């Protein structure tokens, strides 16, 4: 028997957003004359889904169908300031800014509708399908399109809104490190199962089970993309990746995708994910941000699983077959721990 299985766990939390010089983002929302909305941002979509999640936040806040909203980013002439897409701040910071802008635009839209329906704006509600009607009297209704036309050509109103979300600067106490580093925290726990070959030190992923708490999964499909891809990157960091294989000696740096190791489609394993939602007081609809923290629990969970499998602790990343083999030899062979 040269291959041993083991399970390891790790649990983490993650701060949402940075706090350095304050952490602002802005958004502008406006309607065209047929009641279709554009969100103007300077935020970046790196693949994480910035355009899509802000579009949904805007639609929900305005009370219009998501198809009626289009997010335009990133243009420094038309998009207002945003610190950037990093620090898991996109969904939370930009989402809040879009929400604020959409609220303002919704206010004007409801005023315009009220004028058309000759009622008090407070008595109106949106149906999310492109109509505004009197609460409890759905027949007294007007489409957002007609409201937009009226606002533009009759009432002279701009159905638009400006939004900013700013986390003011929190100075750090040089002596104690007292600070407000973030406004809310996401959480995760992950169980990794691995198989270790005690003659070659090779480690194969067997499966992962995880629970992530993200405040609110604004779009479960986008969350799944982040968590599945992030966990892949996590075990990639744990077992494969380094631009300096002999760190701190800088020799033999990889020059291409053959020499820079990342797990291929043949190295992946099943990953069963549960998402918990404990809304953040200051998050858009309670959302936090899954983008970064999704990878973090995987690294230690894999290291702990390797210990469980063969009884060696590798505290030095990445956990290459060489490091595992050296450690197994140093302890005179594999020492499988209590099976979990």
């Amino acid at each position: 028997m040269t291959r041993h299985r083991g399970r390891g766990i790790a649990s983490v939390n993650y701060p949402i957003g940075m706090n350095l010089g304050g952490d602002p983002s802005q958004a502008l929302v406006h309607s065209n004359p047929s009641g279709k909305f554009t969100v103007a941002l300077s935020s970046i979509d790196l693949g994480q889904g910035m355009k899509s999640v802000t579009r949904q936040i805007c639609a929900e806040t305005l009370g219009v169908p998501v198809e009626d909203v289009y997010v335009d980013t990133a243009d420094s002439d038309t998009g207002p300031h945003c610190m950037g897409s990093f620090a898991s701040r996109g969904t939370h910071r930009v989402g809040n800014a879009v929400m604020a802008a959409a609220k303002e635009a919704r206010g004007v839209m409801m005023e315009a509708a009220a004028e058309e329906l000759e009622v008090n704006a407070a008595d109106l509600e949106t149906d999310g399908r492109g109509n505004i009607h009197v609460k409890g009297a759905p027949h007294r209704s007007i489409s957002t399109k007609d409201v937009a036309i009226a606002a533009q050509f009759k009432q002279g109103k701009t159905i638009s809104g400006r939004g900013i979300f700013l986390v003011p600067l929190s100075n750090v106490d040089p002596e104690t490190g007292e600070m407000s580093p973030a406004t809310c925290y996401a959480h995760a726990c992950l169980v990794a199962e691995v198989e270790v070959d005690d003659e070659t030190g090779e480690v194969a992923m067997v499966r992962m089970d995880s629970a992530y708490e993200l405040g609110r999964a604004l779009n479960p499909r986008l969350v799944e993309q982040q968590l599945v891809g992030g966990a892949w990157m996590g075990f990639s960091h744990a077992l494969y990746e380094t631009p300096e294989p002999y760190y701190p000696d800088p020799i033999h740096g990889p020059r291409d995708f053959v020499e820079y190791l990342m797990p291929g489609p043949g190295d992946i394993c099943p990953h069963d994910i549960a998402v918990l939602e404990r809304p953040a007081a200051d998050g858009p609809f309670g959302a936090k941000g899954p983008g970064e923290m999704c990878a973090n629990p995987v690294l230690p969970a894999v290291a702990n699983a390797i210990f469980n499998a063969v009884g060696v602790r590798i505290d030095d990343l990445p956990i290459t077959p060489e490091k595992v083999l050296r450690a197994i030899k140093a302890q005179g062979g594999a020492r499988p721990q209590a099976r979990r």
Partner: protein
Amino acid sequence: MLELRKDIFADERDDNLKEIGKGTQRQDMLGHVTGTSTYFDDHKLQGMLHLKVVRSTHSHARLRRIDTSEAERSPGVRRIIRGADVPRNLNTLLSLINFGKDDEPSLAVDKVRYKGEPIVAVVADSPREAFEAMSKVHVDYEPLPTVFDVEEALKPGAPVVNETYPKNTFTYYDVYDHQKLRFGDVERGLAGADHVLEQRYQMSPIEHAPTETNGSIAAPDTNGRYVVYTSTQALFFSVDTCAKILDVPSNTFHFIGGTVGGGFGGKVDTLTEPLCILAAMLIGRPVRYVFGREEEMQYGAPRGAERIYIKDGVMRDGRVVARKVRAYFDSGAYTRLSSYAAVKCAAHLPGPYTIPNVYGDIYCVFTNRTPATAMRGFGVTAMDFAIECQMDKLAHFVSMDPMEFRILNAYRDGDMKAHRREAKNTALIECVQVAAEKAKWPLREEFKRASSRTDGGGDRAVVPPTPREARPQPAMASQQRTSYDRTPAGTREPAVPPPPPPPPPPASRPPAAPSHGTTRFSSVFGTRRR
């Protein structure tokens, strides 16, 4: 395989929303599957020139002479750009928010501090002609001693990597060569612990490896402006960095981006835009500067490696009572963003656990390697690796189930965190419980019953007495840490940081009944003490 556990924390949520919570298709999916999503490099401009950079072949060397005369005459060459051509050839990214001092040139002039540092930019009609000209740039190096290990770099007599920081460490608050965290009395905590475990952890550098490499295209626009197509993941960061380096108003530029082929933190540094725009300004033609893959892997900023020492005190019953951390961020030759990673790292201590005595010293260290920058999990990923491996070892040490060990030590609503803010909206315990369920990992009843919403606060909500240390005199000119507005370098007034906001009032709920009241804070499972 994603399951939404709506049953948990349901009372804190309004689930009657129309669009939020739906798996709506991505706005950009159609563009992606048809290949019509437009990335920076998908702009074809008439008469576009190609910029390539001659990089240092040494990790640390004085530049005796840079001879570009032969390259200037090379066929197809439009311009050779040297450090002297860069209006403000010294910058640090976070100077935009007045954090840290300018320490990095766009093109090296007197000295190179890492292998691959840009020295000269070549702009030619074709990539081939640029490559040919690069081979005709002659750089006369005087090699200098190098340092690659973070702890070696801190020793007296170590080679000075970056003269802006002669001690090879970033300077915090004009005084310290590291970021401090002090909460409670860690030495007393360790002394009172049943077991003490000290371990060393080493994170590797990591390459972001986005499938799209860093790059930009800059072109003269109408009315004297410049349009810039860019892969940046922080548009205005790049706009303002370029405005500073090129010493022109920011509205000189029209930046267009937003659709980026992966970033993961590696496209925050504005690596290509300044030289690309400068070339377009000097030549008056569209210019394209795109990293090759080897360039991206070796000279595009990586995640910095971190070396972390953790010393923990744990009681037989599994409570961690003290955690002392010393960490070194390998920033490479320049600051970029590592200075902030250390702050974020300090704030992250001691992990998602309530530990009454926490002590952290986090160093941002300069070495002769490619400057590090942000990456997914910035400042936290490595610390999580260290802390969670350590937690596993501690659980093993006191022969406790690692899941139950984490639940026992988990932070809960109302607890005081080491950075002196009240823990709110916590959910670590629930994540552990659900993960255990998914993995069919048996937990004992009392741990299944545990909740983030109960048994926190009380005497876990107080800031413990913390010994103060003597504060040394300011080492150098003050750094502001105020708002996003840049005064010209040199005229900057030293400013005293405003006092930190007061910590929030302690949790109002009555203290939890101390179980046996034997220790400094009541353990939720005090009855289990042996």
